[in-house]
């Protein structure tokens, strides 16, 4: 992975332009009309602005030469009428462009989440991914995400068009200036431009210092004491139920330190004041240089008018144009770097979007077999979780028999869930291979291969979307089949009570749906697994807080539902798996025992007996 983006270093202009192109291309891909609409809107709006200047010049001159009211007013009325019509068009174009921003924003910011759907599972929780994601968050923290880019691009379009307008309408003044031969004018002009340019340079220096400091601060985040204010407040690292621990264990001091104080440390505050100072000074310089040029424009045109080179009416026109010319040129020197920076803040997002999957995705199709004859074998598989030194599975071998019921038992960390994760290709083994009908599973098309498995994970997730969609894992589904699965999972009665049947939303996070209990959620997850109708079903320790009887009932019920499919059950409770023909005992990443309950109990000194005794002693 590339080093995470860094906003402080200098970039060559070429790179900036490339960045801009990348982001604008993305925006254009998401909505090809936004940019043209912005451009058209500004074009007409700038036209209108200069029409107003031309009109005022006309009126003043006409008044100056003692024109008639009727004559002057007639021309004025035509101008005003045209400007009115143009104004309506401008408003329409601007509104349409604005209307596109919020949807564009949602689409764009959904891309990173969409990426999470496509990324290798192993990568999702990897430190690289976490750091990049945090970088994205930091990069976008001080801006309004894509809205900042909209703002910058929009501003630049307007500035450029305004600049062109100023030149087109004001260019005669240059001729006048040259003709006048007044040396004072050139001196004034040069002096003002010089002072203004100096102010601009100072202002942008402050802005650069600001950005440098701000981002430099972000870069040292890793070394500084963590600040968790937002993580706590937005629920990422704190749940209201944790309030119990805080009260019982008097964690208020600790919480205050990480949620408030660490963000307001004196060094941080000093830094913050410095930042504010830079912002303030650069704000002053920005305004000052603009006003300086405006004043200068009036002085020059005023002197020309006094010397009779410019009419009274044209004073406003030329001063206006000159003000715009210098003003926009000056503005561009600020908003272009600002746009570059705003766009650069999206480069971490782009980098994230371009992360490539490393997992090999084969091209072999998975044969669809009615008879479910899929043989799976783990052959000398070893695996370590990324960044871990310990093997989760070590030289692990096992065969799954078609149509069998296999129970997997073992202590925490013995590799039970890891085996499932490898089987479902959430991770690939470091050594050894997993074979499907004798072929390494990496050689199959991943999407097709995954169709073979239905898993109810310990930490399964439902979404706050309609019940039917949750079961079908899709927007469109066969209602009858879904209902059947729900009934099979034992939720038939509950379904009857639901106000909208299978279209009822679950929970209240998305729509005002129905709350379901943990047990019911589990049944929905089971219905989902059933609905997938895969030849392998795996049940990984349903909610551990279930009482043993209910747990056994769930397993038993599930076993009945899955019919003649191959099923694998994982549990701590040995009692839950007693209907299984074969029990695999995992220990330290290996299968240490395999056999029926009865056989395993015979093996004196075996792990199974130890586990069994640990539980059984309390029931003797």
């Amino acid at each position: 992975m590339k080093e995470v983006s860094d906003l402080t270093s200098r970039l060559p202009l070429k790179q900036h332009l490339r960045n801009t192109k990348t982001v604008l291309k993305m925006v254009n891909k998401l909505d090809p009309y936004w940019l043209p609409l912005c451009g058209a809107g500004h074009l007409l709006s700038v036209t209108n602005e200069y029409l107003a200047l031309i009109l005022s010049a006309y009126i003043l001159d006409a008044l100056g030469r003692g024109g008639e009211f009727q004559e002057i007013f007639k021309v004025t009325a035509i101008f005003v009428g045209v400007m009115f019509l143009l104004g309506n068009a401008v408003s329409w174009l601007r509104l349409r462009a604005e209307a596109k921003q919020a949807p564009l924003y949602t689409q764009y910011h959904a891309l990173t989440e969409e990426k999470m759907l496509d990324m290798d599972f192993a990568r999702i929780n990897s430190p690289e991914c976490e750091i990049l994601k945090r970088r994205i968050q930091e990069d976008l923290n001080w801006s309004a995400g894509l809205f900042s880019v909209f703002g910058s691009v929009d501003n630049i379009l307007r500035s450029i068009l305004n600049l062109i307008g100023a030149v087109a309408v004001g260019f005669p003044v240059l001729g006048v200036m040259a003709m006048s031969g007044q040396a004072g004018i050139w001196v004034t002009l040069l002096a003002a431009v010089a002072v203004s340019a100096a102010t601009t340079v100072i202002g942008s220096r402050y802005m650069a210092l600001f950005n440098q400091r701000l981002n430099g601060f972000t870069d040292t985040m890793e070394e500084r004491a963590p600040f968790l204010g937002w993580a706590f407040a937005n629920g990422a690292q704190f749940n209201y139920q944790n309030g119990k621990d805080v009260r019982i264990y008097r964690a208020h001091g600790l919480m205050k330190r990480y949620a408030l104080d660490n963000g307001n440390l004196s060094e941080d505050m000093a830094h913050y004041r410095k930042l504010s100072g830079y912002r303030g000074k650069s704000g002053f310089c920005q305004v000052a240089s603009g006003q300086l040029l405006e004043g200068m424009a009036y002085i020059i045109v005023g002197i020309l008018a006094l010397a009779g080179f410019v009419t009274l009416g044209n004073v406003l026109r030329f001063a206006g144009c000159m003000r715009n010319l210098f003003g926009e040129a000056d503005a561009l020197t600020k908003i272009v770097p600002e746009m570059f920076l705003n766009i650069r803040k999206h480069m971490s997002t782009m980098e994230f979007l371009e992360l490539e999957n490393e997992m090999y995705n084969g091209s072999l199709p998975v044969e669809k077999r009615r008879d479910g004859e899929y043989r799976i074998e783990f052959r000398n598989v070893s695996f370590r979780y990324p960044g871990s030194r310990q093997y989760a599975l070590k030289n692990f071998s096992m065969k799954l028999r078609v149509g069998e019921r296999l129970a997997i038992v073992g202590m925490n960390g013995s590799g039970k869930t890891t085996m499932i994760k490898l089987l479902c290709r959430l991770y690939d083994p470091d050594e050894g291979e997993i074979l499907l009908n004798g072929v390494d599973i990496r050689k199959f098309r991943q999407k097709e291969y995954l169709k073979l498995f239905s898993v109810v994970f310990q930490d399964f997730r439902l979404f706050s979307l309609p019940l039917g969609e949750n079961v079908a894992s899709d927007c469109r589904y066969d209602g009858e089949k879904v209902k059947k699965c729900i009934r099979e999972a034992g939720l038939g009665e509950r379904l009857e009570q639901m106000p909208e049947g299978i279209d009822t939303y679950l929970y209240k996070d998305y729509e005002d749906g129905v709350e379901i209990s943990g047990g019911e959620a589990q049944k929905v997850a089971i219905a989902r697994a059933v609905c997938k109708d895969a030849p392998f079903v795996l049940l990984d320790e349903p909610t551990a807080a279930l009482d043993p009887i209910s747990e056994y009932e769930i397993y038993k019920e599930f076993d009945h539902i899955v019919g003649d499919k191959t099923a694998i059950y994982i549990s701590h409770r040995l009692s839950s798996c007693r209907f299984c023909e074969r029990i695999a005992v995992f220990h330290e990443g290996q299968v240490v025992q395999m056999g029926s309950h009865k056989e395993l109990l015979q093996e004196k000194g075996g792990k199974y007996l130890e586990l069994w005794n640990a539980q059984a002693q309390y029931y003797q």
Partner: protein
Amino acid sequence: MDRKKHSIASNLRFWIRYYLKNEPGIFWISILDILLQPCFFMLALYFPKVTLALIEEQAAPERLTLVLAVYTLLFLTAKGISRGMSAFNDMALNKERQNVVFKTFLKSLRIGYAYTESEEGRNDFRKAVEVQNRGSGSASSQFAFIIRGLAGTVLTFVLYSTVLGTLNIWMVFILLGLACMGYLLDIRENRFQNSLRHEEAVTEKHFFYMKTAMGNASAAKDIRIFGMRGWLRERMNKVTAAREKLERRRAVWIWKNGFLGRILNLVRDLGAYAYLIYMASAGDMTVSDFVLYFSAITGFSGFIREMASGLAGLQQASEDTEWVRGYLEMPEEDISIGSRHVSELARPISIEFRDVSFSYVSGESRTEIFSHLNLQIGAGEKLALVGANGAGKTTLVKLLCGFYEPEEGAIYLNGIDAREFPKAERYSLFSVVFQEMFFPPVRVDESIALQEAESVDQDRLQEALKKAKMWDVLQEKGIAMDQYMGNLKKGGIELSGGQNQRLLLARALYQDGAVLVLDEPTAALDPIAESQVYDAYQEYSHGKTSVFISHRLASTGFSDRIVLLDHGKIAEMGSHGELMEKNGLYAEMFRIQSSYYQENVDEEHQ
């Protein structure tokens, strides 16, 4: 929350007080800015007029240069300072708006737990954070921005009126009339925007839900196995499509409403031009005055509408403020002073539930959990609390700790009504292992002890970790106390569910409260680890009153007494032997659970 409605003025005072206390610069800079605004507006108005007037009277070029240079300098200073100060202020405002969120969060830890857990309390909290999580659109920032703009505009408006009044006092009234009509259109637009707000909030809620759903790492397994990509993506597209439709509707409506406004402006401009051109062409007005008055007329209505929209914005900001203020002004629990102190209690302490009734109330619905419950736990007694899911075990613990208050009856500690102790003190009597695991991503020792590193007694923590059989695990993994938990920092510590559960145990042992409560402390443990916990339980609970809650009846063997809860009632009570002899519900449950572990299991079940 007691939703007291405050006036805008009262909410303004609230923020002024807040800023004066926390960041007084914000207040003073705002005042300065309010005074500067009319200055540069007036300078901008007079600048072209002065230029033209100087040309009209054929002033010397030096004089023109000097006068305009002075004007420019004044203008530049006023506007520059205003802008610079605002930029400075924006940073401070942004800082404070975030601090408000963090203070709101910290507040949520010091008010009644039952409220923070209720749907109402969660909603109040969410709203209080949400109104502060809108960048510069947050309640605290909005108040400052709008007041600053509004006050500046009012002052400028007065000055403009004076200028126009000198020309023609009727002009002021006509313009006021036109501006009022424009204002009515603005009100109409505001009303329309408000009518969309709900729909907009819904699409935003949907967007954020789908965003987190898609990006949720803990759902990633399910998403892949069940091929949910297409489903979630399509849902997200629906959200975007809904937003698009909404925005299109908004654009069309605003354009139509704006059309009426533009017609008003057309009338105003034509009228102004006609009047001014007439005056000037008749020789009653100089060209420079023409320019001055025309800018004043077109600028005038802008100020009125700005004031109107400022007021509307203030109304909204005030409503938003209610959420934050309501939360921040809620009384803290510790403030409710008790007449006794827990230090008076001789340990171990005895506990008595006397005639306790309790129901969960959510809106209209009311679920009764306990009705006139009586239960005594002797000093130093080890009680096992068993029963099916929903029998009321966890509620009982919450009542005991003081998270919930009984509706009727009371809980006595050593015979003293528990309400007589300050809440904060009462909490500290208990060491509880809750079902929900809470490990903030802070230093390892802090995360376990929930205390700041300096105040963690490392020896005692080590002791507690050893008792909970975690010390060796941490040593083996090479985890030091100054490393960080979670994945927020590079090299952060992540442990398995079973290991975390034992850390919770260590936390409870470290606190060493008078009463030990273990709520399903072994749910995530494998059989051997579970058995270790059982074996060590005697040691954990030595010299304490303790309550052990479990589904697993195996846990009852080492308790002095078992209480079987069934639908909020004490169905059976006694020692294991007594209850087995009684041959009731407990005995039946025990037999079912233990049947598998009997030697003849295979015969029985096949």
